[in-house]
């Protein structure tokens, strides 16, 4: 591509409006992706700080640094921010926005202005949650699940953060609608469905979950607000309402939501592995369909969050069976990734190391999920640290680690700069060791009976709690090193080439950073997404 064209149109420096407005009012999908990235990193660090404080509090039984009520708000806000503001929008909002149009050979998403609106809704939702901290009554203390009847009785500020969650849901729905339409309408000529990169497939499946599941939690949240304001009785047992129904409606969304969180991450993995194994992905169609089947089966497993809430044995067994079924497509993906590496020409660069870490941690998270999915073992570990550990292995070890992997993989493309790879690699053992010290001890604690969300504990748990807390320090050190390295690269990194890794999807054919309209001329696609037969000859010289 001619460099003059790229220089003049670089999306980072291009000015459409004066000053900061050319970012805040931009409908360019790449800029919106970066707006999300910046706001999300901020929220991420706020939530990391809250989690860090929680672990510090757990260093000793009884009070260490905060009192019990503060601890309640700490875990509520940590959960709310991490889930609603970081992991759910996470990969789709940042990398999806940035790379979905480029990977299918389009100039932008189908509804660019709607896309910008989604970001504003995201910010407004986040502000609602934050403003509620400073109002009379104190910050919300219900846990991120907002279970009734407590959430309609507590005197803390519940309505504002709930409204925030509703608005965030709206933002998520609009992004979903946008992505589905984009995939259907804006693929480049020759880009058939089965030539789409697997990241696009994953985003497509995710978008469907966003569209189909989110409205249900939306109305549930609205009903809690209505209940608090008007006392209609629908969720209030004193007036004949049934709190279990709230749990059903909440999990009808919130279980599929974990697939909103993990599916895009799986898509990123399917991008990174072929690039660094120099091999086409093993089982392309199977991976594509496994995304869709996860999206589909994921709807019918929600009640496994409620095995001890009061349900008939029949429905518990059905939901348990379905839970085992949904593990199958995830397993299929893991085997396909490993099979792709087999006999590949592996180049162990930073993004791939994060992916390796993901496969290890996610497998532990997935397998312990089966412990929770089967009825008898679930009853033993329900509401203990075991659940907390499982959740963090799949969500942090899964999604967040892949968000970091994606950040390292696409950083040169997004910013046109290279980071220091040695430092990036050095951060991984810190993160890995810290992570496992922090969360693996929680499996043991949970198995021994340590309940989640407790502010204090029996003295015999203390050794494990100390190991866990020290782990949190190592983990945070690793995260600081990793983000510090990327920020340093942003300021002082060397310029990146168009295709530093030898990737073959379309984003590696446009300059780094991409021009405003992505492609000078819309490409015509003639082969599948991971065809290394032509590029291997070319990149040999470069590498």
């Amino acid at each position: 591509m001619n460099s003059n064209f790229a220089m003049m149109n670089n999306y980072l420096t291009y000015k459409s409006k004066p000053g900061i407005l050319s970012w805040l009012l931009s409908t360019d999908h790449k800029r919106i992706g970066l707006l999300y990235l910046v706001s999300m990193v901020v929220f991420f660090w706020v939530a990391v700080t809250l989690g860090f404080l929680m672990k510090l509090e757990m260093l000793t039984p009884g009070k260490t640094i905060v009192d019990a009520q503060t601890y309640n708000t700490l875990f509520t806000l940590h959960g709310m921010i991490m889930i609603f503001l970081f992991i759910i929008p996470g990969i789709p909002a940042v990398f999806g926005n940035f790379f979905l149009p480029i990977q299918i050979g389009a100039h932008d998403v189908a509804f660019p202005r709607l896309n910008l609106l989604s970001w504003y809704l995201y910010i407004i939702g986040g502000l609602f949650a934050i403003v509620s901290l400073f109002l009379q009554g104190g910050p919300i203390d219900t846990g991120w699940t907002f279970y009734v009847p407590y959430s309609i009785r507590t005197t803390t500020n519940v309505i504002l953060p709930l409204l925030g969650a509703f608005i965030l849901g709206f933002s998520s729905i609009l992004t979903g609608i946008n992505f589905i339409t984009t995939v259907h309408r804006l693929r480049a000529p020759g880009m058939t469905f089965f030539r789409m990169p697997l990241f696009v497939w994953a985003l497509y499946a995710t978008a469907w979950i966003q569209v189909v599941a989110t409205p249900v939690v939306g109305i549930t949240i609205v009903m809690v607000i209505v209940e608090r304001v008007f006392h209609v009785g629908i969720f209030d047992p004193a007036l004949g309402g049934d709190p279990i129904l709230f749990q059903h409606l909440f999990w009808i969304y919130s279980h599929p939501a974990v697939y909103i969180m993990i599916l895009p991450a799986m898509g990123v993995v399917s991008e990174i592995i072929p690039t660094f194994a120099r091999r086409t992905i093993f089982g392309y169609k199977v991976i594509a369909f496994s995304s869709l089947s996860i999206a589909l089966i994921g709807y019918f497993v929600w009640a496994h969050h409620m095995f001890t809430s009061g349900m008939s044995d029949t429905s518990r067994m059905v939901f348990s069976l379905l839970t085992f079924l949904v593990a199958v497509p995830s397993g299929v993906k893991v085997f396909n990734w490993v099979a792709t590496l087999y006999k590949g020409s592996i180049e162990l660069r930073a993004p791939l190391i994060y992916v390796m870490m993901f496969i290890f941690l996610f497998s532990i998270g997935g397998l312990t999920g089966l412990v929770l999915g089967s009825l008898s073992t679930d009853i033993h570990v329900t509401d203990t640290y075991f659940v907390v550990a499982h959740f963090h292995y799949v969500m942090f070890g899964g999604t967040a680690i892949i968000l970091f992997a994606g950040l390292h993989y696409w950083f040169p493309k997004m910013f046109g700069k290279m980071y220091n790879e040695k430092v990036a690699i050095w951060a991984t053992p810190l993160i890995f060791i810290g992570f496992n010290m922090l969360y693996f001890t929680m499996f043991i604690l949970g198995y021994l009976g340590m309940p989640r969300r407790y502010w204090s504990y029996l003295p015999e748990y203390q050794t494990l709690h100390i190991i866990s807390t020290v782990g949190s320090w190592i983990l945070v050190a690793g995260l600081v090193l990793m983000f510090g390295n990327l920020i340093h690269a942003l300021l002082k990194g060397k310029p990146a080439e168009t295709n530093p890794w030898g990737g073959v999807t379309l984003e590696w054919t446009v300059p780094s950073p991409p021009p405003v309209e992505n492609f000078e001329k819309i490409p015509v696609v003639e082969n599948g997404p991971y065809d290394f037969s032509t590029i291997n000859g070319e990149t040999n010289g470069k590498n």
Partner: protein
Amino acid sequence: MEKIELREPISANQTNDLAVNQVAETHHHKDEVGAKIGMWLFLFTELLLFGGLFLLYMAYRLQYTNDFIIAGQELNLVMGTVNTIILLTSSLTMALSIAAIQRGKKNLSILFLISTILFALAFLVIKYFEWTEKFHHGIAPNAPELLSKPNGEIIFFGMYYSMTGLHALHVVIGLIVLSFMLFFLLRNRINENDYIKLENSGLYWHLVDLIWIFLFPLFYLIH
């Protein structure tokens, strides 16, 4: 979806567009099929939004069947029926308004759109009288008279106010949207060549109508 694309190759559209305007931020491509896909997806989410409430209604109706039957008889069947007729007719005038602009009959289209708006207003006025009448009889959320009734009746009216309230909110949003459409029609921004906005608003209005078609029997008719 594949079929749609065979009919209208987007690639041509896209490249032409770019040639005309190099700047992505300001280029406007009209993809009517895309706009419709987006609208249908949005309507789907609306159905699911109400779906949560319909699910609650079903669960509570099974739990409190008798109370629901008794409480349902207190609703004003006449007002409910009149409102159903009004809303159904408004859907007809909405469709006629679109049909008119497709044939280039701007004035007729405006006329039908105004009548749709008037019907929507009439619906809200009747709804207002219906609710306030109930309030006067002490059937309001958290009112002592209602709280003295059995739990099932409290829940029935809780569902009634929540569902018809959310529906009324949608009517209000529809009113606002339709007023904008009227403005666009008057300004010729909706015309016989470009009426996708009006069509999509029509789809939304039919959804509002459709939801009422389910609310009406659930609350007023089945005893």
